[in-house]
């Protein structure tokens, strides 16, 4: 179906079901229970899951297939965001032109940077992309202040022209982003007993675009073009000895992944019309590398898992403060309660990155293939019980 193999169709359908039912899956605990802390099914975080999923899928097309490690992908994300916000300021609050422009601008930007950077490979390529990204960050941060509004970030205001829309909404505020009238922030709330599920229009737009991005990525992975990219990764020298020029292939991959990043940036701005320079900083570029490796580089589903994992930690663990800890351990005697809180304290709240770092180390050391490899190991464990020695060649192989 969809002109892809059965195995990939199944994967696509699983991802589709998961994203469509995410409001249920991510909110497993009743709203007023103590475990509600771990619920992630609210619009903003769900949007981030799928948007950074798109970002990581795109990064994986470059890194997973060709092995070129770009350390400057956040630049494309930032450029996408800025173009989208400018569209909202100048044209209208409809998200379609904004998203289209952000993809195009990011693509052009990737073409320029890729053209220069891809003259080198390995560590030199990584350093070049990092340099370009930091350059873009510095430009956005202080030099191009009229276009980017520097550290404060580019925002909408009441006196933007918006030639195809209105500068001021009917009730005197800044109009909100919409898809032909369907407001991105509109949310349908479903109360089922003690549970609350939120279905957000913006999330479903992002989710549909992520499914599209995922489908295109499957097609690229299984195409002759994808095979060429894998050839670049396994032995570029041998490839050039056979008379093939690798650069057009790598450049195409670079531009495609840049456009994915631009799409992600445009969607971020469409969900929340603000673009800040810190979106382009090297830490943001490093984050997508972490996402891809954590999930499993070179696998189809890995980057999406990695993106979800990191965003979950950033948004859920960072909000556990001492108050919450005390309420968890309140059943213990006083001294013991304080001791437990002191022990757990460094790993939650502002220490969330420490926990994430430890998890990352554990994954890299014990599961070099990322979370996908972990899933396969567990799967194999169960399968072996059913049918010992069943063929394992169907397993998605992580990139070498």
């Amino acid at each position, binding site marked *: 179906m969809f002109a892809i193999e059965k195995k990939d169709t199944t994967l696509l359908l699983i991802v589709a079901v998961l994203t469509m039912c995410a409001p249920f899956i991510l909110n497993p605990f009743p709203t007023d229970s103590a475990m509600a802390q771990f619920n992630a099914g609210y619009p903003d975080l769900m949007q981030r899951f799928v948007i950074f999923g798109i970002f990581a899928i795109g990064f994986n097309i470059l890194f997973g297939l060709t092995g070129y490690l770009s350390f400057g992908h956040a630049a494309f994300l930032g450029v996408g965001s800025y173009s989208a916000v400018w569209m909202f300021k100048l044209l209208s609050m409809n998200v379609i032109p904004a998203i289209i422009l952000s993809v195009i601008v990011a693509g052009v930007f990737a073409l320029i940077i890729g053209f220069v950077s891809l003259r080198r490979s390995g560590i030199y390529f990584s350093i070049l992309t990092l340099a370009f990204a930091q350059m873009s960050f510095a430009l956005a941060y202080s030099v191009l202040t009229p276009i980017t509004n520097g550290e404060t970030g580019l925002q909408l205001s009441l006196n933007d022209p918006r030639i195809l829309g209105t500068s001021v909404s009917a009730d005197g505020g800044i109009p909100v982003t919409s898809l032909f009238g369907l*407001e991105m922030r*509109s949310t*349908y709330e479903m109360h089922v007993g003690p549970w609350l599920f939120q279905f957000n229009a913006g999330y479903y737009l992002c989710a549909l675009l992520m499914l599209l991005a995922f489908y295109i990525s499957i097609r690229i992975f299984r195409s002759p073009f994808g095979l060429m990219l894998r050839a670049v990764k396994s032995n570029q020298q041998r490839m050039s000895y056979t008379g093939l020029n690798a650069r057009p292939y790598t450049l195409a991959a670079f531009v495609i992944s840049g456009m994915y990043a631009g799409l992600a940036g445009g969607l971020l701005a469409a969900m929340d019309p603000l673009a800040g320079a810190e979106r382009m900083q090297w830490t943001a570029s490093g984050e997508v590398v972490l996402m891809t490796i954590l999930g499993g580089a070179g696998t189809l589903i890995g980057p999406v898992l990695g993106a979800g994992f990191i965003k979950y930690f950033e*948004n859920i663990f960072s909000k556990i403060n001492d108050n919450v800890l005390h309420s968890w351990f309140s059943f213990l005697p006083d001294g013991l309660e304080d001791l437990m809180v002191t022990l757990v304290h460094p790993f939650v709240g502002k220490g969330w990155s420490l926990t994430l770092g430890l998890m990352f180390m554990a994954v890299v050391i014990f599961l070099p293939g990322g979370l996908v490899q972990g899933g396969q190991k567990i799967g194999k464990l169960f399968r072996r019980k059913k049918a010992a020695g069943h063929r394992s060649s169907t397993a998605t192989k992580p990139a070498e």
Partner: protein
Amino acid sequence: MSKMNLTRRGVIKTGAIAGAGLAMPTYLSAQTQSGYTNAPNGDTVTLGFNVPQSGPYADEGADELRAFELAVEHLNGEGDGGMLSTFSSKVLDGTGILGKKVAYVSGDTQTKSDAARASAKSMIEKDGAIMISGGSSSGVAVAVQGLCQEAGVVFMAGLTHSNDTTGKDKKANGFRHFFNAYMSAAALAPVLKQLYGSDRAAYHLTADYTWGWTQQESIQAATEALGWTTVNNVLTPLAATDFSAYITPVLNSGADVLVLNHYGGNMVNSLTNAVQFGLRDKQVNGKNFEIIVPLYSELMAKGAGANIKGIVGSQNWDWKVESQMGARYTGTNAFVQSFGNKYGFPPSQAAQTCYAQTLLYADAAARAGTFNPCAIGEALAGFEFDGLGNGPTLYRADDHQCFKDVLVVKGAENPEDEFHLVEIVEVTPTEQVTYAPDHPMFAGGALGACNPGA
């Protein structure tokens, strides 16, 4: 490559999923039950405290969070009640707000607009926060204020000193108790004239974001009105930690005053660099070289150590103000005492403004009789109060900015302990720092209409 294996089950499955996906958006619509976002319907009301727990303003953020916790305690009738007893409005009785117990959630802004908005969004969407407060950077405050306006909750700004917060970027749902760069400049100018004369050449180093820009603009305008000249203004990145490269050109610029438009960790580093380069021992144009830090705090003085001695700046509030300047600043001692009892040291001005904002919000809700942001906005606009440590104060309706006395302070020459690093030079009365709502430095924005959300 294409394989089309159509099975009945497969077609039905795919069709159902695609149908559900396509039909979903038509079911979505904003739900209106109570008329405003996150109307509290249990016996608690949730406030969101969004402060920097990492980045250059982390110290201020930690102190803000302490003040918020203290304010929540007092609102719920725990502790000694702090400024509730001195506050001129008496509707708060220690039973929470409108009979609902106050709960709170906290988050980390990381001193980044993006992260701050994500954190505020999760408070609004997940935790049901009805009010967001905090922030130690004007860039972040402006970004979060914009978000709160869109989402339809009240934003009670914490430490934000840029003119833009209640100027160009003001919002109907946003309120600021803290003073601003214009007020600092207006308060400092007479003192500067008295101390350093009216013939000076100033060199500005400015943090490169909304707060730095507006403060530099304000100080330049105020000092040029005294007869000073401005030699140069150099913008420095907020993330910078070493300012030596920016200090060297000052030596040969012919300037005899250095204005550091820096705050928090930035100011500690730039001041230390400037002193290391011997600027303070220099003679230029026959005058002693002077350094000015327009916005000041005890936390910064602590960080800068001996380098801060004798350096002039301004503050919104100081914990010593009531005991040194008299009963006009009542509330200060009550607050300092309950803060000191709980944490063991006196509060910073960031803590005071956050504590006051929380009380002001609670009081406005109690007076309005509802948590509806529009009703609270009406209760706060034009509200005159006293007893929160700053003397008589007005929440101006035109721009949601508080008008009150401003403190001009100086680094102590011989501090008796680490809590007396700053001494109060004088208090500039409200009238002297008041400006018209359409002053050019604040023009260009509009409050717009209040947004109750949902």
